[in-house]
């Protein structure tokens, strides 16, 4: 611990901190542009000048290590004069176009010039002009406003791992650009918009949409992948204008992926706003009454084991739970499944389908093995953590099968289950590496769970890890990487028609067993429609609605309160930021009303009752532990082929989003501009 003084206040700080951090700990805010907690130190904006005793000149506090006995002063007239000088230089070439700048109202330069700016300019010369740069469909540039803090360059090189941004030229002519103005190929690219302290990099889809003070801000959870990034949804009336990240060090730090941020314009397109009934192959608008009437009549005339249901990838846990009740109490059918494919799951123990090492734990890891997974597209934030771990601990990464550029180097193993067999039987060099590693991580992706040997692989890997004490009270090296926001929640709620790889509902559909099929927000259709009467409930007119007979318009994730459990098993609540369009209703209300129509008794009186009942259920199931882990399983030598992931088109909201379409187009025509190794 170091003892030092800030403005005559004695404080004790840890070693290795900078003067700026010491001042923050003492409670004094230091203005800054280039410094950022999550990035390396550049020290080039000079805004953070402070006075240190015995030093003749003011010192840039962000780049100065704090030492024992320092006497730092942040509020002297000398400091203020120095900062005013820096600010005047920054403003010399900065255009005074705040009224037409999208950053206005949340601009660091604007805010700080309120304290350190002088009221009129002494600069009479012409201001510098910098041509705009093309940086892709997400980032709008106005480079004349750039103050060369280089945050964006450091973010791209360090966090995103795509060294495509750079500063060309020098002195007054320095310009930030990508190599020959190609767009940035990263799923984290739009974070540079948040990082930019001025209006040089602003959001292209949000251009001139609204001012920050006009927007209603709701803190909620993202559902684009299973990570459950913390976000803030900004709405103007009904419309979701933009989505920004919220800091959560355990999950997304302070970044979010481009899909989480920009799929929100999909919430305005392709929306189902009124119930529809298909008559003679054409959808006709109808009332809720009519729709309920048709469904309940159909249910009366069908025996309960001929009714099945599949739930979707964006469904919240309340809806899942009330659907489960609807099936078990109202219809009395057990044909409900949350998997859109034949996917292996054994939910006897929670650790069988969770990311047990935790996202935060990746940072401590020194060895990572990826099996049938491409974390860059399946869970972008997890991939960013792996890269951070690689930078911090020089973590060795192995992948079974070549999965393309992951933004960090990794060793490729042959993509067969034979290799996994060798590893778990201690015959492979990787086995030694796992044993020697203090905190290894093995990540199993969805592509592996589709294989016949999924059960074998999972059990054997667990056995191997347990034998070598890699699964203990402090550390669990076994991880499953779920792809969808609802996956873990539905396993927790036991929305499965059968354990193991076979999905009983899908099998039934293949054998034409069912007469009524409920699709609850399910648009990943992996089956062929036969003669079933399909009821689709969901927010968007997509693949599910297309094949259905009755459409019940539901709400999207920003339009209803709901819980989501992320891939590491953390339960988080998403809050209502907007309301469902037209006549659409919240999902749980629809199921409840349908239940009361059929049985003339509603399942739950209100949302609170539903929530309490669900939490109770989760508590009970988590305390029930049954360890019948073993089913019969055989080894099959198979190829592990990675699921092709259409990153920008992975769910209904993204598919309806124009911005995502543009990103996808850009990606298709993209040529690699970084180093091709």
């Amino acid at each position, binding site marked *: 611990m170091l003892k030092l003084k800030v403005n005559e206040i004695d404080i004790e700080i840890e070693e290795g901190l900078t003067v700026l951090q010491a001042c923050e700990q003492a409670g004094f805010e230091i203005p800054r542009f280039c410094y950022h907690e999550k990035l390396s130190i550049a020290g080039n904006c000079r805004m953070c000048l402070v006075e240190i005793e015995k030093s003749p000149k003011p010192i840039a506090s962000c780049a100065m290590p704090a030492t024992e006995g320092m006497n730092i002063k942040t509020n002297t007239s000398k400091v203020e004069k120095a900062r005013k000088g820096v600010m005047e230089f920054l403003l010399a070439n900065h255009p005074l176009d705040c009224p037409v700048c999208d950053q206005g109202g949340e601009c660091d330069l604007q805010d700080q010039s309120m304290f350190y700016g002088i009221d009129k300019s002494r600069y009479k010369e012409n201001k510098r002009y910098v041509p705009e740069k093309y940086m892709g469909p997400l980032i709008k540039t106005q480079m004349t406003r750039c103050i060369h803090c280089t945050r964006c360059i450091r973010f791209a090189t360090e966090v995103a791992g795509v*060294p*495509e*941004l*750079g*500063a*060309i*030229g*020098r002195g007054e*002519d320095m*310009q930030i650009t*990508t*190599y*020959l103005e190609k767009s940035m190929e990263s799923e984290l690219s739009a974070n540079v918009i948040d990082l930019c302290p001025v209006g040089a990099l602003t959001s292209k889809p949000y251009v001139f949409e609204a001012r920050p003070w006009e927007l209603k801000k709701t803190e909620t959870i993202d559902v684009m992948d299973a990570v459950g990034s913390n976000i803030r949804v900004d709405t103007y009336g009904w419309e979701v204008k933009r989505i920004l990240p919220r800091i959560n060090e355990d999950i997304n730090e302070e970044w979010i992926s481009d899909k989480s941020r920009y799929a929100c314009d999909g919430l305005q397109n392709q929306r189902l706003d009124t119930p529809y009934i298909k008559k003679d192959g054409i959808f006709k608008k109808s009332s809720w009454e009519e729709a309920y009437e048709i469904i309940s009549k159909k249910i009366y005339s069908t025996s309960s084991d001929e009714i099945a249901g599949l739930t979707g990838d964006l469904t919240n846990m309340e809806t899942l739970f009330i659907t489960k009740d609807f099936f078990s109490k109202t219809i009395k059918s057990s044909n409900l499944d949350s998997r859109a494919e034949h996917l292996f799951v054994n939910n006897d123990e929670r650790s069988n389908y969770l990311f047990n090492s935790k996202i935060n734990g990746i940072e401590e890891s020194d060895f990572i093995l990826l099996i049938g997974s491409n974390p860059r597209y399946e869970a972008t934030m997890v991939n960013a953590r792996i890269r951070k771990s690689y930078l911090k601990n020089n973590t060795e990464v192995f992948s079974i099968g070549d999965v393309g550029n992951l933004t960090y180097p990794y060793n490729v193993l042959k993509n067969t289950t034979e290799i996994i067999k060798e590893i778990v039987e201690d015959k492979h060099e990787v086995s030694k590496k796992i044993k020697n590693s203090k905190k290894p991580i093995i990540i199993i992706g969805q592509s592996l769970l589709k294989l016949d040997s999924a059960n074998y692989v999972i059990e054997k890997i667990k056995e191997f890890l347990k034998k070598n004490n890699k699964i203990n009270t402090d550390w669990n090296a076994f991880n499953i990487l779920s792809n969808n926001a609802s996956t873990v929640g539905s396993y927790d709620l036991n929305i499965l028609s059968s354990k193991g790889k076979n999905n009983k509902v899908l099998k039934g559909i293949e054998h034409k067993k069912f007469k009524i099929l409920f699709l609850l927000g399910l648009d990943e259709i992996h089956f062929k429609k036969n003669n079933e009467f399909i009821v689709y409930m969901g927010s968007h007119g997509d693949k599910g609605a297309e094949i259905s007979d009755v459409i019940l318009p539901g709400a999207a994730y920003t339009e209803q309160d709901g819980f989501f459990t992320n891939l590491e098993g953390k339960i988080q609540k998403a809050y209502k930021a907007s309301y469902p369009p037209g006549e659409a209703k919240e999902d749980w209300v629809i199921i409840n009303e349908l239940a009361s129509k059929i049985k003339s008794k509603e399942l739950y009186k209100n949302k609170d009752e539903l929530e309490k009942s669900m939490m109770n259920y989760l508590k009970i199931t988590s305390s029930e532990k049954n360890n019948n882990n073993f089913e019969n399983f055989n080894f099959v030598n198979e190829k592990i082929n990675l699921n092709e992931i259409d990153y920008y088109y992975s769910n209904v909201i993204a598919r309806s989003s124009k911005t995502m379409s543009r990103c996808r187009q850009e990606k298709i025509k993209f040529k690699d*501009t*970084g*180093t*091709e*190794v």
Partner: protein
Amino acid sequence: MSIKKISKEQPENFNFSEENLKITEKILSNYPNDKKQSAVMALLYLAQRQNDNWIPLAAMKHIAKFLNMPYIKVFEVATFYSMYNLTPVGKHFIQICTTTPCMLRGAYKLVDICKRKISEEQNTLSKDKNCSWTEVECLGACVNAPMMQINDDYYEDLDEKMTEKIIDQILSDIKPKPGSYRGRINTEPENNRQTLMDLKNA
């Protein structure tokens, strides 16, 4: 000075000549294994010499791959330094010093000759595309002002007549003799040296 423009006409490919490949090996051996990227400046210079005094984008890409660096990082270096040319400057690249000592000794007369003989504007190629000229800041030969640099050689103690002769030779592909054009050895006084008489090569 403004930001460097990139030539619109770019060759498709660039590869180091065999001779230069040997030199690159020597350059690379100066740096430790994990710091090979430090060789970027030397390699850019080598590429510039090989390619008639300018660096095409293909060469930057080639060097980036050669040193396992992102393209943009090589591009940053190449745009930062004024002595890397990113547009064609001709086989004979003439740089005339116009900083104060040279200017006082008549550097602008040299400039006028270049304007007349090579091209009206600086940084533009002559008619046969073999030659261009530019004004530069001090080249460190103030004692022998005025002077100009043609490719690697200094031509010093010039006047109009001599300059015209040199440029005529250059334009007809003859390499004039470098050094002082008033018969001096290096920067010795004109009427022979008065001190350090016992040293041969002072």
